[in-house]
């Protein structure tokens, strides 16, 4: 499912990232790449969401979150 659908406090594994090289590069520089385990921190309807990866918090716009596919662990 897309990251934007995941609910709060769930542990997730990134399966794949749909998008251009640019987006993938920016995400992987922040520790978000296929295989990385993340935790959803805030996901309110409408706005951007916050995930935790490796002990740091990243705010991700909703548009981008739709392009990140995850599995619940």
């Amino acid at each position, binding site marked *: 499912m897309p990251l934007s659908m995941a609910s709060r406090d769930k542990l997730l594994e990134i399966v794949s990232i749909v998008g251009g090289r640019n987006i993938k590069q920016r995400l992987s520089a922040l520790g978000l790449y296929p295989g990385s385990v993340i935790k959803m921190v*805030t996901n309110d309807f409408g706005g951007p969401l916050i995930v935790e990866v490796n002990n740091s918090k990243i*705010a991700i716009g909703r548009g981008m979150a739709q392009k990140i596919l995850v599995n619940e662990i």
Partner: protein
Amino acid sequence: MDSTNLERNLYLTLLLMEMEKPMVIALNMFDEFEKSGYKIDLDKFRKYLGVDVVPTVATKDKGLKELIDKAIKVAKSKKQYRKMEYRLLFDKFIENEIDGLVEKLKKEELPNKYPLRWLAIKLIEKDEYVIQILKKEIGKDISPLAKEHIMAIEERFDDDTETILTEARYGIINGILKDVLKKPKNYNIPFTEKLDKIVTNKYLGLPIFFALMYIVFKLTFDGSGPFIDWVDGFINGYIGKYVGLAFSSAPHWIKSLVIDGIIGGVGLVLSFVPLMMFIYFFLALLEESGYMSRAAFVLDKIMHSIGLNGKSFIPMILGFGCNVPAIYATRALENEKDRKLTAVLVPFMSCGARLPIYALFTSVFFVKYQASIVLLMYVLGIIVAIGVGLLLKNTKPFETAKSPLLLELPPYRIPSAKMLFSSTWIRTRSFLKKAGSIILLAMVVLWAVINLPSGSSPDNSYLAKAAKTVAPIFAPTGFDRWQTVASILPGVIAKESVVGALGQTLGVEEKSEKEKASFIEDSREQILGLTRAVIDSFKNMFGSLTPGVFEIESISNSTFSQKIKSVFTPLSAFSYMVFMLLFIPCIVTLAAIKQEFGWGLMFFEIGLLTVIPYIVSTVIYQGGRLLGFH
């Protein structure tokens, strides 16, 4: 690198290692790292990386000397850093393919500034940027050489090469960290967690943001008020008095240049330094504490409506301090069109330099509502920026790609006093430099055009003649007197000089009351005054909830106020304030836009910042008259 976030930071280090650059790693924020319970085996870590590692605490100057020494040593050694020295290799299969490609690259004529292994990796990753650069430099596309290797890797690992290499790098990193790093059992930061639950809450986020902005605004005005009064008295009543005495035997024109032109003009500008220091201080506090990125998060949705994401908000709010660093701050935005649109909107953010204008007019016309009117100026700037953003976002050059927000939210930190003060000082210093150079020059030139041809009254001066010709254009805006029109021009150079310019065109002379001058007595008086100002500042800031009023004695009690009243009505003064809010902020901002985006955008900005203020001021003045104001 940020030692509290090693995994992610090492990713960049690995990329740099691939470039085979000599380096020394600084493990910064090491105090926080240890405090949160991490343990690291530095010797093992150094061995793995093949790079020297120095723990540092930059805010406390810890480890910096060692770091610099080691960096110099590494730089001097001139040793070529090769992959074997770094010893961090991908999986055998991938390394084989890289080696294969390196062999092929050896046969090509390539600029030898690039390490071949690095080029091979980039080609295998299909890095567009590197491929384009090479094409330019050697005149041919060598990317097909990598094709067979890419296919081999993709087939083996069943994914695309970029993803495979990214995962492989993180694999290497995790392997190292597993061996050298001991993580604390419970490593979330409870304070940050709790605060974020409130601050980024979907209902509370925006109200909290606006409340904070209000508090910043209130503290800035209340806190700086007494200091403004003091500096004003210090310059005009003290320095002015004794400089006047020193020049008492000089020819009249020199005395006039020094007292009216330089001390009067530059001095008036300088009296607003405390105000700027306060606003710079609070901006630094918001930045360093970590709240700024939360604000970007909270405002993301609103910013989307004008085609930008929340990150664009950071340059905008910096614009409240000064537009120039705000223009440069757009560099942090990834998308070029986002950058342009943000830069175009930044000048509508009312910078510190515009405050003196509001302060002057509100203290003459709107004493009762001073703080509210000034606040209204800020809000008006934001509203116009939103309007312009809405108009521009659908035009070709600014059509944004709707690049989404991606932003780290650092843990909250209590900023060190040293950092806050150095940040405040750096920004204030650049203002003082401006006061000493551009503004001083503007004041002298202005003094010259007002007082020439020699012996003429301001009414017959060169400036008056020129301004009178242009003045009718400004009739719809309500401020079409030559004195006011003439003060617009210095505003292009620097907004700080507008107030001084008005002082000069209106022919305000500092009345030096010829009392018994006792230098020691006066000096003591000044020092006592400063102490009183400190006390009053604290009383003001924390004594009440609503912003207080500051008055500038030399303005409110003097002929300046009378003269302002003779050429402005409250309505035309308001219209003038709005014009100055939206007009070209200063020549330095324009230069920054030119430097970052080229002539085209700069001329566009000049046009925009001339037409919009004219229209808005006209609407306000004419609308106000229809409603019966005057």
